[in-house]
């Protein structure tokens, strides 16, 4: 095979690939303006190299081929006005396109004229010879000869034009090329979508290089009558022919140029790779004969067959290798849906917030599918869907029942116009119009609509294919799974938060309790506290004031959990410091109440009993700020309530308090408790009550404080057996020793 044959082969291959590209692009969307123009452009571009190949390989050798037939190959020059037209609408129609649409169509006229001229007027001499006429009717003859004279003049003029037609029309073609490249460049600068920009860049570079090389090799030399040597010219044209269609194929395969579907992209890749491999194989097989001849010095049919068989053996693994390579490079590219899904699921596996999930969905769809606008709605309440946006008061989509049911039954993405008639005009209809929705993707979880995606049109007027819809269906399933994990995460977070809070409250409460019981000559003590599951505001305290005097506190702050615990802690600090200050009890409670009232809105308060025991005098001074009356059971069994004091602490400021006083006799027992104990209920909703408590104290009063305490607790627990505790339960027992 010589260089000439190789050139013809390259011409043939590039011409066919251009045809194939034109076919793929047209097939993808036969109604799309961009697809039509692009395929027309590529089709005409393909005629050029095919004609060159045909001329080089066989037409050249046929004698007496009429010039007009050869000249009909000029039809390929329609590529130039088509390129201009393409530049005006790629990737999106320029504003001027609509105004100068006619002008763009007129741009085809010079080329058409040129074509007609070179075909029909290929040999003006012959036309001229045909235009002689002799008539026997003088008048008609005169008229006709005048007409013929005019026609002869026109023909002569065209004949004159034909002398430099190629130069003249090369100038026009050059103008088209320059204009088209300028328009393409400015169109490129206006693009905002990054991926679109990427593919448009590849296409523009490819076209610029391809057309530019052709311009340098053919157009410029023609205009300026420069003689390029054949190899240089051929190399440039061939390079241009490879780069031009190559870049468009690359853009289609790698960047989904014109949103060409995966199947089309795959077939494109396979046909190109197969063409390369088979072409290579054929060249080698064709050359085998001459190679063998040069090696062994003579022709050998046997060796030829052998080489072909060996080549066939090699061919299969080579083809597999190329196939693998092509798959790796092209098909598993970012444009491939399975890869998008893979990276999407990886991304959302770390997303636990609905807002972030929505943002990821939006990003992925905009980036990978060229969708202009994506809105994500998640279910808020029954048939009400909230558009996920930064604004929490953002719009809601409320859905009619039959629309809802339709979406559920559909189970798959659908075009908006399919449903717009069924949509409630007021709500979802508005959302459709507002976001110019083209496709709706229902997110279905266990036969319920968990959310919706509203997808607008794609950029540059690309359309949704069936491939897109099945991809969206899989994506929707993934979103639903992610939504589930968002919910689980939120629930577990909430649970964890509550448990942590309870643990904190419990810790605060435990920290408030005294480490040990006071030791006194004439009294013995016992204390018991059992926090409820929710942790209330109970606490008790013993405050050593002097060797003879000990303060006793029992209190119950309103509310539960950390706030109650913190309130109790503040109260304890106040009581401890005021008590050690040696104030009178009524003054002490007055200032504690004022302090707590100022720092609380009144909703938070505490009932509190504070007493001071004098060991020597066996005397108790006390102030009861709204607490359950402590019960004093005398040795003889009579009972008294310790009521003196004043209002609960922290509710109203400036309240006055009174101090009460009790003189103990040996054997007297004082029991302080919180309502968690007295209000413990049995399964008939009957409270344990003060009566039962008093009886219990009476029953066990001869025992040490510790025994009385544990017997009361046991009795309460028996009473309320099986009932979940609702409140903290606290008990303090003070018993005057008998010896």
């Amino acid at each position: 095979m010589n260089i000439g044959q190789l050139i013809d082969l390259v011409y043939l291959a590039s011409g066919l690939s251009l045809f194939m590209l034109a076919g793929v692009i047209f097939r993808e969307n036969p109604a799309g303006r961009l697809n039509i123009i692009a395929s027309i452009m590529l089709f005409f571009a393909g005629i050029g190299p095919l004609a060159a190949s045909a001329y080089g390989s066989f037409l050249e050798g046929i004698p007496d081929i009429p010039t007009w037939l050869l000249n009909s190959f000029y039809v390929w020059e329609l590529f130039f006005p088509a390129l201009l037209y393409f530049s005006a609408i790629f990737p999106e129609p320029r504003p001027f396109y609509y105004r100068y649409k006619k002008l763009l169509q007129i741009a085809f006229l010079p080329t058409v004229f040129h074509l007609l001229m070179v075909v029909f007027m290929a040999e003006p001499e012959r036309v001229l010879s045909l235009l002689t006429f002799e008539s026997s009717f003088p008048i008609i003859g005169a008229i006709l000869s005048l007409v013929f004279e005019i026609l002869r003049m026109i023909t002569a003029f065209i004949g004159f034009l034909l002398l430099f037609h190629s130069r003249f029309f090369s100038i026009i073609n050059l103008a088209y090329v320059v204009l088209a490249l300028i328009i393409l460049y400015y169109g490129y600068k206006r693009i905002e979508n990054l991926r679109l920009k990427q593919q448009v860049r590849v296409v523009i570079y490819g076209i610029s290089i391809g057309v530019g090389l052709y311009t340098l090799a053919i157009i410029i030399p023609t205009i300026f009558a420069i003689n390029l040597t054949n190899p240089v010219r051929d190399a440039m044209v061939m390079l241009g022919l490879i780069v031009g269609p190559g870049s468009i194929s690359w853009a289609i395969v790698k960047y989904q140029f014109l949103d060409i579907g995966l199947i089309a992209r795959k077939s494109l890749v396979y046909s190109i790779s197969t063409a390369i491999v088979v072409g290579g194989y054929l060249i080698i097989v064709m050359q085998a004969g001459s190679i063998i001849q040069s090696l062994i010095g003579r022709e050998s049919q046997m060796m030829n067959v052998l080489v072909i068989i060996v080549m066939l053996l090699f061919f299969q693994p080579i083809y597999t290798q190329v196939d693998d390579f092509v798959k790796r490079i092209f098909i598993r590219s970012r444009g491939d849906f399975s890869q998008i899904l893979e990276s999407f699921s990886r991304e959302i596996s770390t997303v636990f917030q609905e807002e972030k999930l929505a943002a990821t969905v939006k990003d992925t769809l905009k980036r990978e599918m060229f969708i202009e606008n994506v809105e994500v709605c998640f279910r808020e309440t029954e048939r009400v869907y909230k558009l996920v946006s930064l604004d929490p008061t953002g719009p809601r989509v409320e859905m009619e029942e039959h629309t809802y049911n339709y979406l559920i039954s559909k189970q798959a993405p659908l075009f908006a116009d399919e449903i717009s008639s069924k949509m409630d005009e007021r709500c979802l209809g508005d959302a459709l119009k507002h976001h110019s929705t083209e496709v709706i993707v229902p997110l279905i979880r266990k036969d319920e609509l968990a959310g919706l995606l509203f997808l607008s049109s794609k950029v540059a007027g690309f359309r949704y294919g069936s491939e897109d819809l099945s991809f969206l269906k899989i994506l929707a399933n993934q979103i639903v799974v992610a939504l589930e994990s968002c919910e689980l995460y939120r629930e577990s977070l909430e649970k964890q938060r509550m448990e942590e809070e309870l643990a904190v409250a419990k810790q605060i409460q435990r920290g408030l309790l005294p480490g040990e019981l006071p030791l006194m000559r004439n009294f013995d003590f016992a204390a018991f506290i059992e926090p409820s599951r929710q942790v209330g505001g109970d606490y008790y305290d013993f405050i050593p004031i002097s060797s003879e005097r000990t303060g006793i506190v029992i209190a119950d702050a309103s509310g539960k959990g950390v706030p109650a615990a913190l309130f109790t802690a503040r109260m304890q600090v106040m009581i401890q410091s005021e008590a050690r200050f040696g104030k009178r009890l009524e003054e002490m409670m007055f200032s504690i109440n004022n302090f707590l009232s100022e720092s609380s809105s009144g909703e938070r308060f505490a009932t509190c009993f504070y007493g001071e025991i004098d060991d020597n005098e066996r005397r108790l001074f006390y102030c009861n700020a709204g607490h359950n009356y402590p019960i004093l059971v005398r040795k003889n069994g009579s009972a008294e309530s310790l009521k003196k004091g004043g209002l609960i602490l922290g509710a109203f400021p400036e309240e006055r308090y009174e101090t009460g006083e009790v003189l103990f006799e040996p054997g007297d027992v004082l029991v302080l408790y919180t309502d968690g104990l007295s209000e413990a209920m049995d399964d008939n909703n009957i409270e344990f009550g003060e009566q039962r408590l008093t009886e219990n104290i009476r029953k066990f009063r001869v025992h040490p404080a510790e025994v009385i305490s544990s017997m009361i607790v046991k009795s309460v627990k028996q009473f309320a057996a099986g009932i979940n505790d609702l409140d903290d339960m606290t008990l303090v027992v003070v018993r005057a020793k008998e010896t």
Partner: protein
Amino acid sequence: MKLTSREENSIVILEPRGKIMGGPDATILHDQLHEFIDQDKKRVVIDLAKVEWMNSTGLGILISGLTTLRNNGGELKLARVTEKIESLLTITKLITVFDNYDSVEDALKSFD
């Protein structure tokens, strides 16, 4: 807890029913009280005849209601307090803070 309200001589009468305990229950009463204050309705009677029980949170709501109304120049009165709640008010000495009437009519009259 369920809550109904009516008005008589521009005095709001709130009728809670059930138990006034903590949680979302309690906020209904709280929100309702503050809504009336916002509407410049500052004379309120709470009819407690149908309230079986209230806990410390319930008491807190009454206290804050009273405080807020008084701070805005209004008044909160209680009517038909059940024995059980009366004992709670007695122990906490809140009985000295709240005006408490045997009937709603008496409570309404007390505003004259």
